[in-house]
């Protein structure tokens, strides 16, 4: 059985804003990062806001979490993948909204890829710090997000890939 983000966190409003130049979402994202102070010093909030993929708002309309992304190649699998960064307000980190946002993003990006075959976006990629993953890093395949281990970087970080099922590789 597949559960959707809206079923998991019904009091929240999830939106897919990838490559839409949604000025309101971008302004809210910049406000969010400023409020939380969670962008690295060398990162431009305006540039990062252009990479917005999804936002989530609480019942009052306040932005409480977001996902940004970039597309890049993982040579090992010879495929173009989306590399995502997620952030959730501290007060919501113990709830289900963070996981719901991840599920929402996955489904929305998979649809976007199918609607834009010229982009050849094959799935998600990620480089994971073992320390940041803790117990989850011991599990080589995460069934809910379909994110599987494919190897390691020289610095020990895990390389994970989650394929879009309907994508077809160029062989």
């Amino acid at each position, binding site marked *: 059985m597949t559960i959707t983000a809206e079923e998991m966190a019904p009091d929240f409003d999830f939106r897919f804003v990838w490559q839409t130049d949604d000025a309101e979402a971008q302004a809210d994202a910049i406000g969010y990062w400023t409020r939380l102070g969670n962008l690295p010093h060398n990162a431009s909030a305006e540039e990062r806001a252009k990479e917005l993929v999804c936002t989530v708002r609480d019942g009052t309309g306040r932005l409480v979490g977001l996902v940004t992304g970039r597309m890049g190649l993982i040579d090992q699998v010879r495929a173009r993948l989306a590399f995502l960064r997620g952030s959730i307000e501290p007060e919501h980190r113990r709830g289900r909204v963070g996981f719901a946002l991840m599920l929402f993003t996955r489904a929305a990006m998979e649809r976007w890829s199918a609607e834009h075959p010229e982009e050849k976006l*094959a799935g998600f990629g990620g480089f994971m710090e073992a320390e940041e993953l803790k117990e989850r890093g011991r599990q080589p395949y995460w069934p809910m997000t379909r994110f*599987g281990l494919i190897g390691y970087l020289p610095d020990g970080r895990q390389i994970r890939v989650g394929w879009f*099922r309907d994508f077809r590789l160029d062989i």
Partner: protein
Amino acid sequence: MTDSGVPDGAPDVRVAWRRDDEGIEADAIAFWARLSLLPEGVDPAVRAKEIVAGAYRDGELVGLATAAIEHVTFLKATMAVLRAATAPDHRRTGVQRALAGPVHAALSDWAAANAEVGLAGIIGFVDASELGDFLRVPVWPASGLEVIGYTPENRQIRVRWFDHFRFD
């Protein structure tokens, strides 16, 4: 029936992993000899101990899956290295599709029952020449095997991790 007269219904699958099933072992040795499938220097009796499951049609062995347990360095994991063979006149008739589920279940159940071995999943190396367009599918639906890379000889590497496995 297929155009060539081969039945295309699902074959009967017989699981043999670590069961010392002399019947399927003898059938496999005859299958390898008939089709000249084993490389020189490989002892058929030893390879027969690696049978995971066989597929039968009308009492004849038409497909086989074997596995060797090996450490895969780049995954830092112990994996079942899968080999599959199908009789030429039964190819593209669902033989390996029928074997996929039972093979995964047999190896996964055995891994869970023998946790001290630390068997993490199944890995396969696939020749580009063998499967054509099927290689373009990143996750094979029947087996769950996903693309994780390519060898220097351009063979596709596919993996399915066991749900119950956790790294130390």
